[in-house]
């Protein structure tokens, strides 16, 4: 039984409705949670960068190994060497934040350029860029990264360049799709007919006005992807090495104890990964419904 109610009085106009009124309750929830996660991540990065941590992440305390959460002095307990988990989790963000930003910057910049070339210029560009997209999509990302690791023994930033490059096709396709949508309603042709120069059409009308929402959404999803890749790598032992903490190597370190029934050292970082990636994906979806409206164009 679905209920529809019309409030009496004058009918509001869509343009005057605030963003919140326009969105459905679910979208607000998703976006809210997502923004909370982003805030926590940024805050943790700042704390970690300046070293304002609740405890010394490296301080080994043999007497207090694998302490459960809420033991005195250690809100989130300690790991297998008695180091404070909360501090290590906060510091663990360092491994993702900047590399993640690098990856999404490359994806957004490269994707936008390719997308505009394919959509706006079209013709040969379209064919070449579609080929390039399919080529990049052919590699499982992790396998390609392992190849790069084997070849260059790179640090995290090299890896994030690869993640950035492999993220370009998705964005290029979305932007080309958006341009096709505008072209199909003769918008592009009308802009040229009026005499608008190409750079205005591309930068202002296409990228800024019609694609900014899309780019923000892809940035959040891109960050989630970067974190996923980095945690997998550090789990495999290629990311940040002990004793510097990263969520991936913390989960890995706690593995043996996990199998003996002491879950917490491995679960805490895993939940941190889960909460962050879930937050970013929900934020992406929520923003999409809010800014783009239901139609996915």
């Amino acid at each position, binding site marked *: 039984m679905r209920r529809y109610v019309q409030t009496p009085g004058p009918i509001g106009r*869509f*343009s005057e409705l605030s963003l919140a009124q326009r969105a459905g309750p679910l979208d607000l929830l998703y976006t809210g949670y997502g923004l909370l996660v982003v805030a926590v991540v940024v805050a943790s990065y700042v704390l970690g960068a300046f070293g304002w941590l609740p405890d010394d992440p490296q301080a080994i305390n043999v007497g207090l190994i694998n302490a459960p959460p809420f033991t005195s002095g250690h809100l989130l307990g300690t790991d297998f060497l008695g180091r404070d988990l909360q501090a290590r989790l906060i510091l663990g963000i360092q491994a993702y934040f900047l590399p993640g930003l690098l990856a999404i910057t490359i994806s957004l910049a490269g994707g936008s350029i390719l997308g505009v070339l394919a959509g706006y210029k079209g013709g040969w560009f379209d064919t070449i860029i579609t080929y390039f997209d399919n080529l990049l999509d052919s590699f499982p990302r992790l396998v390609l990264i392992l190849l790069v690791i084997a070849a260059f023994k790179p640090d995290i930033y090299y890896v994030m360049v690869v993640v950035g490059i492999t993220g370009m096709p998705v964005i290029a396709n979305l932007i080309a799709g958006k341009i096709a949508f505008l072209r199909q*309603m*003769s918008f592009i042709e*009308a802009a040229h*007919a009026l005499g608008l*120069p190409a750079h205005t059409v591309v930068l202002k009308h296409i990228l800024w006005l*019609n694609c900014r929402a899309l780019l923000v959404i892809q940035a959040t999803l891109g960050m989630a992807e970067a974190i996923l890749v980095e945690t997998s790598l550090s789990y495999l032992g290629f990311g940040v090495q002990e004793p510097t903490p990263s969520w991936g190597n913390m989960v890995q370190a706690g593995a043996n104890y996990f199998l003996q029934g002491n879950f917490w050292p491995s679960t805490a970082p895993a939940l941190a990964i889960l909460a962050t990636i879930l937050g970013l994906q929900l934020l992406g979806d929520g923003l999409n419904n809010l800014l783009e409206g239901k139609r996915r164009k």
Partner: protein
Amino acid sequence: MSRTILEVTDLRKDYSQRRGLISMLTGQERVIPAVDGVSFYLRENETVGLVGESGCGKTTIGRTVLRLTDPSSGRIVFDGRDITKMSRAELRPLRREMQMIFQDLDAGLNPRMRVRDILREALTVHERPRDAEIAGRIRELLEQVSLKESKLTNFPSELSGGEKRRVGIARVLAVRPRLIVADEPTSALDISIQAQVVNLLRDLQKNLGLTYLFISHDLPVVELVSQKVAVMYLGRIVEMGLAENIAHQPRHPYTGVLWSSLADKQTTEVTRRVTNVAVERERRNWGVFDFEQPASGCRFAPRCPLYKDKGRPAICTDPASEPQLRDVGHGHVVACHFA
């Protein structure tokens, strides 16, 4: 008599249909002559109607004349200057004097911009007016297209069909054009709104001295607004002359078929000779007829009532004697052996 503002001679435009990567490499392209040698001229403050079925090339002419697509050959002279080969940069200042109203109501209306910003951008494309002046100009434009001031803060998605068309026209008027190519300006609108837009376009022509190339398949409207009408068939003009002659004394059989297809005979007395369109072969996504291999000789022969009545005369399908436009009295031209 008013000056000639636009003169088009032997305009040709071919579309090549590329199909995917492989065929591009192997060069299999199907070339379709959308516009196959068209010549006409437009006199200032006059309206020429361009009619024909979908796929006859009338829309392509509209876009080619404004150099929105580049012609394959032929000459386009606007206001005495040959713009056929002009570069984008050279063309830009001229661009303001010749504008286009698109069939799609949303053309030119960025879904993310409010009406005020759309008009402001149009006003600042070619000039740099001060803010006060812009507000004044916007009010003036609203009056010209009789649009309420309250609409300025709306997004295009909140406007009705009629309002979208008015904003579209205001956006074009902002650059003070002299020639407007109107491509099916009324076909996407309801009847009552169509009438408003037709009246509006005629008022603008009177007040601003505009010249229209009025492209439409809505024959009564074309008859009403145009002094001269050109009838197009498969990329060629088959008949051109004063609107009333075209409607009431058509010399080309196709013009007769076109006007007779007007379901009710309110407007014209031409006896209704509906041809049995047995040859309605569909050419995939290109007009109604098999375009690549146009019948040799006169292209209309397969559907032509005269051709059947006169016992399929050879001259009609003789490739050497494709009928050319010839004058049949005070400027009325027709391309038919038996006109």
